[in-house]
């Protein structure tokens, strides 16, 4: 028997959950979704069914005071899930570069350190990329499942968000790999909370009562560097060049800005310096020669002692920020980040090796306006990381070859340039799709 107040709350919960279920069902009827997004939505539907069943049948059997606590907690659990469902519903296969995100999901899920995880794509309103922290939500969903007595397991989802304007883009969406780096960092608990006291001890003499803050800031900066390194190790210069492109959109790579740290991010000069180390170690130097590569080398040469602290309203904090920057840049701390990336990506394939195998054929295809899955006599479709990097190099250096065979397009007209570049990106996305189709056919 439910009291009037519990009955009222149960009715509200019932309406909320039913409405979400209807929203999902309607969207699924009208659209198709990337594989893991579809699984996430199905998981939400099953959770909705089990929740409604719990409210109808099992909740009334609970002890009186537990009824109200249970239903209030259930509503809160669904409010959390609510914030995840909408951006996933927005990201149907027509609104995301499906082959790219499908490949990324397989690429990341194939790494031993995070094997079997499933990347769900969200569309977000900002012109930015993000990773939604997922482990707390996963635990909350597991507890919700236990309360409602559902029989299924909570799948191992990760959530990456891309801007809704970039649905057909290949180049900019390489930035998703940085977010995948954050996903890996969270999944393996790269910088656990229990490490903070040790770090704080190291920082104590310089930072005194600020040592805890300093330790946490160092961890945040290190995770950013880690995410960059993961991205470059997995996708090569395509990530670095895409970052430079995004930077140009925002602040024109000014020398002051790229030397400035923010509360959440190390200075871009440091980030690019560390990326260049990986690119050189992976042997990209001979293939990645572009104007951007020269720019990258210049940025990497910016002296560390010219890095600038974040703007802080309190001028007395400037010295502390500078000390913290110096601490992060110590060789042993930078090495620690590289070592962690090496450790967790030990089984990755060097994208430069894939690229070298197919660079010539990809370039030839693009020069003639052909989808780069045609591989002549080789019967082997170039690997997606090779297609992505081939496309980026072509976009940055070789577009003139394409203008020659499409005389109707005037390369001095911005709109026409943009339209041809978009087409090139779409050919490459198609190339990735062909690779995935061939791979699945062979399995």
């Amino acid at each position: 028997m439910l009291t009037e107040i519990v009955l009222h709350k149960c009715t509200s919960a019932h309406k909320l959950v039913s409405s979400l279920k209807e929203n999902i069902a309607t969207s699924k009827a009208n659209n198709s979704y990337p594989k893991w997004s579809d699984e996430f939505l199905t998981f939400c539907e099953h959770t909705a069914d089990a929740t409604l069943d719990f409210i109808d049948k099992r909740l009334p059997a609970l002890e009186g005071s537990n009824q109200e606590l249970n239903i209030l907690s259930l509503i809160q659990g669904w409010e959390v899930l609510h914030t995840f469902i909408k951006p996933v519903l927005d990201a149907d296969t027509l609104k995301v570069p499906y082959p790219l995100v499908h490949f990324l999901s397989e690429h990341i899920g194939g790494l031993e350190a995070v094997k079997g995880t499933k990347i769900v794509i969200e569309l977000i309103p900002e012109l930015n990329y993000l990773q939604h922290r997922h482990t707390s939500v996963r635990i909350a969903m597991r507890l919700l499942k236990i309360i409602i007595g559902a029989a299924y397991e909570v799948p191992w989802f990760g959530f990456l968000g891309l801007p809704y304007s970039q649905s057909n883009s290949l180049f900019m969406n390489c930035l998703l790999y940085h977010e995948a780096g954050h996903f890996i960092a969270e999944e393996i608990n790269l910088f656990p909370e229990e490490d903070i006291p040790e770090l704080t001890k190291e920082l104590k003499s310089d930072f005194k009562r600020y040592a805890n803050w300093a330790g946490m800031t160092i961890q945040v900066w290190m995770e950013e560097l880690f995410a960059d390194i993961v991205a470059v190790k997995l996708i090569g210069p395509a990530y670095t060049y895409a970052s430079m492109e995004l930077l140009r959109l925002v602040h024109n790579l000014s020398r002051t800005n790229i030397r400035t740290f923010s509360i959440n991010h190390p200075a871009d000069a440091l980030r690019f310096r560390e990326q260049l180390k990986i690119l050189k170690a992976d042997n990209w130097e001979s293939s990645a020669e572009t104007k951007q590569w020269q720019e990258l080398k210049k940025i990497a040469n910016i002296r560390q002692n010219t890095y600038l602290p974040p703007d802080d309203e309190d001028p007395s904090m400037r010295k502390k920020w500078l000390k913290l920057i110096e601490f992060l840049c110590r060789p042993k701390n930078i090495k620690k980040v590289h070592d962690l990336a090496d450790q967790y990506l030990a089984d990755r394939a060097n994208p430069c090796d894939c690229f070298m195998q197919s660079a010539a054929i990809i370039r030839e295809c693009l020069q003639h306006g052909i989808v780069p899955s045609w591989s002549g006599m080789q019967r082997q479709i170039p690997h997606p990381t090779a297609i992505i990097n081939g496309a980026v190099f072509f976009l940055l250096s070789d577009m003139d070859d394409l203008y020659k065979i499409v005389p109707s397009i005037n390369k001095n007209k911005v709109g026409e340039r943009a339209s041809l570049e978009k087409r090139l990106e779409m050919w490459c996305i198609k190339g990735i799709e062909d690779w995935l189709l061939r791979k699945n056919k062979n399995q």
Partner: protein
Amino acid sequence: MLGKRNMRDSIGYVTLGLFSNALLNELQEAANNPGCVPEHREMIDLAIDSFHEIQSPKSISRPRFADLVFQKHQEANALRKTLSSSKTKTNLREMNKVLDTIVKDEVTADRRSKSIEKAVDFFRELARTAIIKAECPEERIPPGVAQLAY
């Protein structure tokens, strides 16, 4: 925005609320039959391991996917703050002993019953406080997203 909170800022408290409720349901079932070890003890075991891990980090070896609760900053913080503002006088170490007693084989029905009662009081108070705090977390944590923002 109309409301007072963003549920993503409240996730630590939501998790604590769900955790306490799931545990309460198991304890309630155990209370009906204190003569033997509870048949359903998934949550009790999870609580014992999670509390133990908070007190002695890295002491529990577990596969990557076997998530314990309260190991993330947001959840651990929510637990700390909820405990300090709830009426309960019991600390985590004592509660771990109580939960251990509930799942031990060689415990009398009377002792198990008293332990269950104590645990129910503790987690009911925890659930109540967590639910209230989830509605208006007193601090905004940095956005629950790791952005590439430049």
